């Protein structure tokens, strides 16, 4: 027999090459699975109860109240609709003001062949109804102040969207040589006539609209009710809502909705999670009992290998 030194061909004796790496070898044994199911089940039931109760509390119109508009049968998630935008433009790159990206087509140029800014189908279909909410106290209408600030994502407002650099201190000049989207009544720099800073691509309503929905049924935040007498919620009473109807939905069988709601730590009102947790938790508990019975009945003997 040769010794190690001579035999050059002898493979190395390492745990890796000899496939002897130390390892944890878990087995789905009864001792793990049955208690596991039980624990998961109980934990889920616990979480489920918590979620369900939280969801139930949302019903009351306590402050701050959020004012949503909802659209249904509206396919913001249609692929060609989704790609029909120009992020270069929207981040304030004036080069793309002159020649929008192809993806915006057919909303890139207007009939005079002027580039449209902001281009694309999403921007063009911007929801432009406006609402006014009044509380009717003793027959008189009291305007409920609506807060339009901070209704878009912070990242959208601060990072993703940027207005073009002002030209001569004016946003309007920066949009020189461009055309407004076809459906818009006013150009982008005049979206909010009341607040100069809420214009251009940084208009909060515009930002909310541009964050397109995942599903054809969606709601979008319109305003928050955080001020004055209504900061703690909408008191019970009669209200009237004035709708400035601009946006056509009937022609595509859509519907519009107005929703007032508040939120909890787990977001908007949605009972699904709570109920799902309760159901799954209960099933797990039931399953662990079934497993115990099966285990007791079928436990195979070790000798029959």
């Amino acid at each position: 027999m040769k010794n190690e030194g001579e035999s050059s061909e002898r493979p190395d004796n390492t745990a890796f090459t000899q496939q002897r790496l130390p390892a944890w070898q878990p087995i789905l044994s009864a001792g793990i699975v049955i208690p596991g199911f039980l624990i998961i089940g109980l934990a889920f039931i616990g979480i489920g109860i918590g979620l369900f109760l939280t969801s139930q509390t949302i019903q009351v119109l306590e402050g701050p109240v959020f004012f949503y508009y909802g659209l249904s049968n509206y396919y913001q998630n249609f692929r060609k609709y989704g790609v029909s935008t120009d992020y270069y433009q929207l981040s304030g790159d004036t080069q793309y003001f002159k020649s929008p990206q192809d993806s915006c087509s057919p909303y890139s140029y207007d009939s005079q062949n002027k580039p449209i800014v902001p281009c694309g189908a999403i921007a063009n279909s911007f929801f432009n109804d406006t609402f006014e909410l009044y509380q009717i106290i003793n027959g008189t209408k009291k305007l409920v102040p609506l807060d339009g600030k901070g209704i878009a994502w912070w990242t959208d407002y601060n990072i993703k969207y940027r207005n073009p650099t002002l030209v001569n201190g004016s946003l309007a000049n920066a949009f020189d040589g461009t055309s407004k989207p076809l459906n818009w009544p006013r150009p982008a720099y005049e979206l909010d006539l009341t607040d100069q800073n809420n214009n251009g691509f940084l208009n909060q309503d515009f930002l909310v609209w541009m964050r397109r929905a995942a599903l054809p049924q969606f709601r979008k935040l319109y305003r928050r009710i955080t001020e004055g007498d209504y900061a703690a919620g909408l008191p019970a009473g009669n209200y009237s809502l004035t709708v400035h109807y601009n946006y056509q939905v009937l022609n595509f069988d859509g519907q519009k909705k107005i929703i007032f709601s508040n939120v909890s730590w787990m977001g908007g009102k949605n009972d699904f999670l709570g109920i799902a947790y309760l159901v799954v938790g209960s099933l797990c508990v039931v399953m662990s009992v079934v497993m115990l019975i099966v285990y007791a009945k079928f436990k195979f003997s070790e000798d029959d290998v």
Partner: protein
Amino acid sequence: MSFFGLDCVRKKEREVERKIRANDREYNSTFKYATNSIKTSKYNPFTFLPLNLFEQFQRIANAYFLILLILQVIPAISSLSWFTTVVPLVLVLSVTAAKDAIDDINRHRSDRKVNNRKVNILINGKLTSDKWMNVQVGDIIKLENNQFVTADLLLLSSSEPLNLVYIETAELDGETNLKVKQSLTVTGDMGEDLGALGSFNGEVCCEPPNNRLDRFTGTLTFDTQKHSLDNERVLLRGCTLRNTDWCFGLVLFAGPETKLMQNCGKSTFKRTSIDRLMNVLVLFIFGLLALMCIILAVGNGIWENQTGSEFNNFLPREENTAFSAFLTFWSYIIILNTVVPISLYVSMEVIRLGNSYYINWDRNMYHARSDTPAEARTTTLNEELGQIKYVFSDKTGTLTQNIMTFNKCSINGKSYGDVYQQYSGERLEITEETTPVDFSFNPLADPKFLFYDHSLIEAVKLELPDVQAFFRLLALCHTVMAEEKKEGHLVYQAQSPDEGALVTAARNFGFVFRSRSPETITIEEMGMQRSYELLAILDFNNVRKRMSVIVRSPEGKLSLYCKGADTIIYERLHPSCRKLMEATTDHLNEFAGEGLRTLVLAYKNIDEDYFSEWKQRHHESSVALEDREEKLDELYEEIEKNMMLIGATAIEDKLQDGVALTIEQLAKAEIKIWVLTGDKQETAENIGYSCNLLREEMNDVFTVAAHSPEEVRQELRDARLKMKPSTEPNKFLVPEVILGNTPKLVQDESVEGEYGLVINGHSLAFALESGMELEFLRTACMCKTVICCRVTPLQKAQVVELVKKYKKAVTLAIGDGANDVSMIKAAHIGVGISGQEGMQAVLSSDFSFAQFRFLQRLLLVHGRWSYLRMCKFLRYFFYKNFTFTFVHFWYAFFCGFSAQTVYDEGFITLYNLVYTALPVLGMSLFDQDVNAGWSLEFPQLYVPGQLSQYFSKRAFMMCVLHSCYSSLMIFFVPYAATYDTARADGTEGADYQSFALITQTCLTVTVCVQLGLDLSYWTVVNHLFVWGSLGMFFILTFTMYTDGLFRIRPSSFAFVGTARNCLNQPNVWLTVALTALLCVLPVVAHRFFSCQIAPTINDKVRNKMREMKEPAPRPRHPRLTRRSTRRSGYAFSHAQGYGDLVTSRRFLRRPATSRSTAFNSAGRSPGFKPTGRSAGYSPVGREQNPKQKVEPTSLQKFRTVIDSSF
């Protein structure tokens, strides 16, 4: 050489008869016979690229990705970037092409090497040295000693007396002994006369090229006379000329038409059964893909018609709904292409490569004595090793070491050879520590001979007459040649290793056979030289099963010494031996029980008068023209009568280490072992018994040895009816449905009890004919063991092909010699025994190692693991990709069938590449259900692999269903959880980007947890991969959604801010947890229940392993107790041959000049080995051991002169 290698296609009409005129190239060239150049390469520099690409794109997957790529560059339907497909595709293609190129360069190189070998050709009466490839049919060439035979030759003349030549055919048929060929006298007379040879214009008319190694028919017309030609006159390519200075031959068949090349099976690209299954599955997946896309396209059409057209206000689109649906179809083809991910094939190759390295690295498959590690030469077949159902093994060199040792003997009713404990009398096992008998008293002893029983040497020293007679017989009764280069340095040349072992035993015990002449045998008896007059050799043949010599001692006493099979000798013993017979029979049974080959020795003193009368009759018979054989047999029968029993010998045909244990293990794993050997039936059977293939407990061992097709069929049928009396004739055929080209399969039939089948080459040839092959296969497959003896290399391949064709089973062939090459190539897996002289088998094998016993580790450990890992990999891989893809399908119903992806494009690119690649790779490289020790402890663990239980169409369907369920969960739980909801601050929470991120997270976490569940062996690496990938998902997600990247390329990183706005929401995490558990818990429950209610063998072993905290089963070395009463027919493994030469009426005398060079004694270990299984001739050109020089055997130290006097 044709440009595209099309010459094989444009086959000229079948040759019926071959006509050759010697030395007439012009005449011969009219027939367009193949020249001697061979071509095994596939490409040349110009054809490489097109041919190779063509071959590669024949793989469905590659073609598919090419089509996909084309689709992706069409803007109207492109839903994903084109480079996601092109990069991996180019990578895969170029790696494969590089590998093919290297392989082909090597083939070119070896072709060139073999084609450029030099040989002397006789052209215009002059010898010119030329390349092999220039040799043409009809040329006369001169071969020298130790040269490879260039082509199939008709032997014309030789340097040796009687125009004999000696050749070694080991590379052709695996037989190690030298063979003798003899030329016709009419051509032999030309000798070395170049003039005569140059003007030789004989015409040969012979059979067309074929692969029968043992047959040749033809005629030579020369000088208006016709001479018939047979196999005796032909030297085949692949043989090596030995002990012959030179010879001349006429080329009959050249290059690809030689019998060797005709015997080399085509080398085909091997694919594993998983590969084949994958091809079917890939087709199925394409179907599924098409179906999904059609559904979605129809959906799109309907949607466009009903909803979309109204939506036109916001998005003007294609008016034609049918065209829109058509485009949608292709868009979805691109999006859903991840059902057949290109990384699947790359990953599979990586896994196989990794598992091949484990084989190379395994120290338990490293053979220290020859310093040979195991080697996975093909790295694409690993998982097939876990599915082997049939093992076809060669015998010599694979199961046996081809070394015979004289182990035991029985002399005059006393048994020698065992070692007993001095006091208790207990029998001791012979180990390396046991002291062997010291033969130093005998200067002529062979130092390599080992014997452990000291009582025998004492008996010799006491000069007990029986013992002396015993060894005297062994020293006299044989056909061995002795050679004494130096004084006292004896080398024996025996035709069979058995004989050599016996003579060597006698030599060590003081009865040294020193030399022989045709008339005398000189031996040294206890230091005293005595010369016996050799009067007759009654040679061995298959019927007689014995051989005898008649000698006259120096004292003038006439004796006949005989050795042979016990049954044969017992019939011819003198009645007075009865008592001794009983004792000897006991010993014989004991020897046979240990698997030794036994021979019985007897002698007889002969009366001088009787003998001279007998000799006279013998002479008359031997010149008789009619029934010479029968007459001689009668005479032999007459004199071999009333013999006196001396004793018996027991020879061990040394098995390779651990063969019996390995075979036992493989049998437990329900692997059927067929031995295919060129050896004769008795030897093969004997080995079958000694390595536990055939067992005494077997209900029956059938022997098929018939001479006509009808008899063979009858014997096969009888055997089958005996095994299973009620067999319906045609019920065993099941029609094969898929891929119609295999018409039928032979089903496994279960049989009560264990049976063995032994079939010889003759019968096998009939059995393999198309009419009978099913009959044969059916019978053979009912038997536990099948032994085919006297088979040619091609028959070996045919047997393998037969099983491959009609059995849905994976086959493995293992062998060590060139004669095994065709079988190794034919089988699904070929294994070569490495570390020996010949490299032929290794070169064409897929795996190689030094010892047969490593086969159990290769199969039961590496193969099983590889298979398990590959199957786990595939199941998981399909699961994760289907789940990934099906989510798109569900989403389509909510996005107007617009080919909108659910996920962000970055995630789609990275999902297979980064997030899920390493964990599954880690699983398929490290996973073990049970460790190696347990795998060997329970060979039954191998069975699921044979039945393809871990991955099959069924398992695949389960994957699809499982994915369906998971994808539904992954889509609808986030759907429901985000429906009409918002973030905790009231802002958008159900937008597309958040939804995408939530489903992405759910998906990644789910597949990760699922992997954790599948992983049964968590090494550090696995932890690293699993947690690392999960971590990587979050890190990369956050990175991709940062402002920095968005600034660089807003359109590609439009998800900016989504991660931080979404993943800080508690309800998102609750959704992820719910989804993951909903996906995984049913699986856990299912596994738990199936493990409790119907545990598989794996479950059982794993459970057992867990209970025995110490997971290291001890390696076992059980001593195999074989109790067998079966004895070998006759131990000799050689055929009739030398006896004739020694005694024929040819006078042998020593040559005047002795050719002397130091002889490398051939033996390697205790035992006797005549000529090593030698030297490889390699048809692809590689001279494996050019150093080996074989010296002339002593046989040729005699010049023979024809002498009519006896």
